[in-house]
């Protein structure tokens, strides 16, 4: 994965910012020249990830901090989300069984389904880290900009 982080977003744990982050992520991913459906998948995964940090990590408190680092290596995008929220047992981060229909319990499933990888860990300095990664299908045009994105 490329070492230089070309973009980083730091936000407070406020639901109103979700739409803004989604659009940023989609615009940034579109630099890979991928298909619309791929953008939508990554936008959804990021939305679910941040919503979970806000609700489960920060218990809906609006003043928690969330940082997202954007990395890219060719067609592969990787996002590292870090927070200072409480550390929960990693095995508790899992969705309800799909056939047990009830409100909620889908976010983690959606992240795993739409990304190639969604991996949570505890940060040694406190808080949680989530890595979301996906290799996008690219179109030929993208090589034109290869040199100045990443």
């Amino acid at each position, binding site marked *: 994965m490329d070492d230089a982080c070309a973009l980083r977003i730091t936000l407070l744990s406020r639901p109103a910012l979700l739409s803004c982050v*989604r659009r940023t992520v989609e615009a940034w991913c579109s630099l890979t020249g991928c298909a619309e459906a791929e953008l939508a998948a990554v936008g959804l995964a990021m939305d679910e990830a941040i*919503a979970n940090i806000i*609700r489960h990590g920060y218990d809906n408190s609006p003043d928690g901090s969330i940082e997202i680092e954007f990395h890219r290596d060719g067609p592969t995008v990787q996002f590292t989300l870090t927070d200072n929220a409480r550390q929960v047992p990693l095995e508790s981060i899992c969705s309800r069984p799909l056939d047990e229909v*009830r*409100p909620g319990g889908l976010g983690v499933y959606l992240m795993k389904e739409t990304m190639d990888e969604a991996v949570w860990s505890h940060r040694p300095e406190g808080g949680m880290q989530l890595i979301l990664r996906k290799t996008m299908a690219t179109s030929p045009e993208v090589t034109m900009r290869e040199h100045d994105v990443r």
Partner: protein
Amino acid sequence: MSADHTFAVHVESTDVAAIVRPVGDVDLSSSPMLRTSLEQAIAQSKPRTIVDLTSVGYMDSSGVATLVEGLQRTRRADSAFLLCGMSDRVLSIFQISRLDAIFTIADTLDAALGTDT
């Protein structure tokens, strides 16, 4: 003209149906408003409750959860719950979470108003 990221929900009713029309993206910031309007619509105890998603470009799992809740409430009240006007993007989240088989999904509002359930 107001910007496209603000959110609103319109509730309308006919003899046979209460129609809920969210306008904008449904995510964690807007789903509580959708839930409130849905509760109001269901409280009207019409034979049908219809959620018209024509003006919704995006929905996340908090929106889906709100609709599952609506479905369960109407079931208890023995009334029909229908979704219509879904864009491909919105439909895909129902498909991924295999809820497209649980909900009654009509193409258009007219179809939802005319569907026998």
